[in-house]
């Protein structure tokens, strides 16, 4: 790091903390970054300077390598640091980290938030950061007092030894001059005072009071606002456009063409909107003009009849079917879905000499940085990313093309001004990157007792990962792991002596993306509904039937039994109420849900959901409960309402009137039970979603005798 850079960072850090002395800088020296990113190298200890600042005002600032999008990292990651550091919890401050290699995901190698991994991937690193800083503070105190470090302890923001006592803030200056220890010993879980205890969110007060800053709230001096007229069908390009009327709108400053369409840049949102409305654009629609969901459904139906690429296989399928007493077949289908984050997509960009500054709520800093640099003609390290709070993520703010950021850099470049590109709700819904449509065709042969002997399943759906950064890791032999997750690794499938799972990954112009719980959104619905069909066919209770099939899967059994017990599965319900159950593993966590429903003139009402979760070591039970509650509502929206359709290339939905959400009056009461566990931490943000659709569908079957094999559910 040059002296100038150091000075700049120093001053910036100083300003940020406004509190004088700090431990180190927010960006680590390049030599360290190189060491950390060397291929195949053993993971070195984290540099505490990148993650932690202790101010002379006693503030303890934790920098987040993950983005806060509702999942609670603003609280959970500081908990990991605080446990080891021994600081005063009330002194914790939190910031999103800048984009830099030091913040690369410990598993994926790039700075990103996703896969329900924020806690598990940081479990060691953030605790180590806390422990390293504690050791440095203790060493500083020991030296000052001329005592053995072993005779000092760090607790509640102070280091003490006998009658000597110094605060972290008082010790920070001398601690920061010390060399970090080469190794630290982390606390045993039995000694935890913070981890494992339900802890309230640190961002709740600011969010309730409207003080939390989201991407849309960013304001810069001289900033303009742009709306972009984008292609009406996938793959369309601008043939020509007339901007006269748009430019005549008061407040419109410029109309510029960018790769994604035509941007109207104005002083304010409303002028940009009027300007965009006044644009006349002739589009070259291309082959996307013929896109039709009805036709695609018919094509998927045909494809499912043929064997796809082999995703899993075992035994002898033909022999299995020959020896079966009975064969049961079914087809399941789920539609395209939009993430519909409450905060529509947006990004603010300011270009200046040798610098590109970006303000946005992103899940994908490294990708954004690389792509923005290419467009701006800069090096990635010349791109500064200021991650704001995310008004919902669910995967949408992590596109492999950095769709939103890339476009905003193009607009800022063309407009030669700082610009905030705002997406309207309609833009957001029509912007692509949807949860894929999937069809599953199942044929299962069972013995006389109803246990599966032969399991054949064909999956049809677009690949999310093909062509992305993750393809080398997660696409094997033409099989996109996200297309078959929850099926190819299902205990039901692998427990059937003869089985085969096939995959068709048709290509379409529609852009697809991970959507909170990804392939499990479909696979849990398919598997847990179909298991109910098998239970019915065998004349067995759905819980008993699952217990038998999952007898060698203790964590599945644990949540299944807990949910059944807490829901009173064996007790009768009041008149008109019916129950359904589902159990599914995803992202390293096991979740079972019992849904209690009633059906009134084709209207499904979900009254209560009992949820049991085993997420391994649980860092913040309050956060896990909140994620289960939220995941259930998110999944319920997909079960009851969510569907995107195309006709003549155009998306038929545009806003919340035709893409409805579960609202207060439809929201069930949810109770969450967490299985105590010492297993490796799993995820929490996504695993609550998959079981709810099948649990509700199974309850509807109990109520009506109708088996619903398509989402969203329709009884009429």
């Amino acid at each position, binding site marked *: 790091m040059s002296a100038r850079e150091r000075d700049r960072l120093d001053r910036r850090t100083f300003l940020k903390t406004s509190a004088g002395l700090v431990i180190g800088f927010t960006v680590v020296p390049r030599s360290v970054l190189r060491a950390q990113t060397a291929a195949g190298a053993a993971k070195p200890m984290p540099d505490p300077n990148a993650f932690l600042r202790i101010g002379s005002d006693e503030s303890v600032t934790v920098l987040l390598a993950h983005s806060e*999008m*509702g*999942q*609670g990292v603003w609280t959970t990651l500081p908990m990991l640091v605080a446990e080891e550091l021994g600081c005063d*919890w*009330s002194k914790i401050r939190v910031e999103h980290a800048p984009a830099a290699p030091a913040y690369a995901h410990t598993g994926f190698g790039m700075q990103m938030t996703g896969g329900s991994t924020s806690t598990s991937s940081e479990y060691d690193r953030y605790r180590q950061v806390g422990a390293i800083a504690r050791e440095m503070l203790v060493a500083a105190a020991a030296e000052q007092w001329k005592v053995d470090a072993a005779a000092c302890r760090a607790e509640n923001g102070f280091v003490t030894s006998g009658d000597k006592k110094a605060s972290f803030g008082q010790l920070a200056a001398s601690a920061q001059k010390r060399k970090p220890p080469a190794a630290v010993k982390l606390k045993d879980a039995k000694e935890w005072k913070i981890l494992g*205890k*339900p*802890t*309230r969110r640190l*961002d*709740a*007060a*600011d*969010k*309730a*009071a*409207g003080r939390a*800053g*989201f991407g*849309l*709230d960013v*304001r810069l001096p001289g900033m303009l606002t742009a709306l972009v007229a984008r292609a009406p069908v996938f793959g369309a390009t601008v043939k020509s456009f007339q901007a006269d009327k748009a430019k005549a709108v008061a*407040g419109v400053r410029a109309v510029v063409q960018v790769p994604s369409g035509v941007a109207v840049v104005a002083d*304010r*949102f*409303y*002028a940009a909107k009027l300007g965009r409305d006044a644009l006349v654009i002739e589009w070259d629609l291309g082959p996307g003009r013929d896109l039709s969901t009805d036709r695609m459904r018919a094509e998927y139906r045909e494809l499912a009849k043929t064997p796809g690429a082999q995703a899993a296989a075992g035994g002898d399928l033909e022999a299995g079917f020959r020896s079966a007493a009975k064969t049961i077949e079914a087809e399941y289908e789920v539609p395209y879905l939009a993430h*519909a*984050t*409450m*905060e*529509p997509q947006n990004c603010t960009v300011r270009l200046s000499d040798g610098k590109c500054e970006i303000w946005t709520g992103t899940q994908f800093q490294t990708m954004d940085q690389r792509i923005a640099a290419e467009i701006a003609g800069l090096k990635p390290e010349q791109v500064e990313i200021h991650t704001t*709070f*995310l*008004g*919902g*993520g*669910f995967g949408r703010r992590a596109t492999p093309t950095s769709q939103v950021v890339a476009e905003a850099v193009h607009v800022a470049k063309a407009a030669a001004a700082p610009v905030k590109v*705002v997406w*309207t*709700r309609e833009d957001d819904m029509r912007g692509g990157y949807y949860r894929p449509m999937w069809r599953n065709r199942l044929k299962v042969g069972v013995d006389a007792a109803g246990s599966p002997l032969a399991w054949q399943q064909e999956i049809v759906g677009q690949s999310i990962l093909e062509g992305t950064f993750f393809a080398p890791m997660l696409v094997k032999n033409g099989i996109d792991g996200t297309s078959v997750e929850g099926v190819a690794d299902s205990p039901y499938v692998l427990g059937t002596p003869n089985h085969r799972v096939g995959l068709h990954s048709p290509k379409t112009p529609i852009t697809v993306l991970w959507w909170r719980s990804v392939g499990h959104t479909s696979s849990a619905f398919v598997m847990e509904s179909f298991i109910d069909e098998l239970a019915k066919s065998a004349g067995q209770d759905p819980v008993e039937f699952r217990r038998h099939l999952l007898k060698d899967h203790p964590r599945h059994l644990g949540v299944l039994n807990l949910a059944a017990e807490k829901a009173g599965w064996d007790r009768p319900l009041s008149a008109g109420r019916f129950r359904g159950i589902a159990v599914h593993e995803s992202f390293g966590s096991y979740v079972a849900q019992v849904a209690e429903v009633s059906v009134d003139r084709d209207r499904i009402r979900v009254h209560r959901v009992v949820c049991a979760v085993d997420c391994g070591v649980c860092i913040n039970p*309050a956060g896990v409960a*909140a994620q289960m*509650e*939220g995941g*259930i*509502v*998110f999944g319920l929206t997909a079960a009851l309402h969510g569907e995107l359709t195309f006709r003549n290339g155009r998306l038929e939905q545009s*806003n*919340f*009137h035709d893409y409805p959400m*579960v*609202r*207060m*009056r439809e*929201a*069930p*009461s*949810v109770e969450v039970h967490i299985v105590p566990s010492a297993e490796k931490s799993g995820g929490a943000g996504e695993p609550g979603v998959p079981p709810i659709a099948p649990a509700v569908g199974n309850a509807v079957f109990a109520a009506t005798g109708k088996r619903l094999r398509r989402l969203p559910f329709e009884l009429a």
Partner: protein
Amino acid sequence: MIELQVNGKRHRLDVHPDTPLLWVLREDLGLTGTKYGCGMALCGACTVHVDGLARRSCVAPVSSVQGKAITTIEGLPDGPWRVVEEAWVAEDVPQCGYCQPGQVMAAAALLKARARPTDDDIDAAMSGNICRCGTYQRIRAAIHRAASGAAPVEKKS
């Protein structure tokens, strides 16, 4: 010129009279606590009070609210309404938090109309506000907590 009274302050603004109040609050007055979610009064993220009643600022032309008392989340007065925000913290309501200022404004308007709302009252008053993170059950609990006048719990768990 448009004359607005927002959070007790008067403003004279040179804006297009059709501009939705939402954008005037956010862009001209810098009151970004009021959120844009749908632009069609479908989600409630933009909820403010106009003469004490909950209104969707994204569809209210600024000219239509001249001379009326507009209150935003930033101006939710201390005293009786602070308890609503405190209840939100006590029940650990927000997740992403984007919709929550609108939820708090809708809840405050409800509590003004009904000091002890029933679950049916809450369903009726709050179903215009979407929370994509699904915090509804905690919002319900927070409204009941605020209505009961329960003292806020300590910040630390």
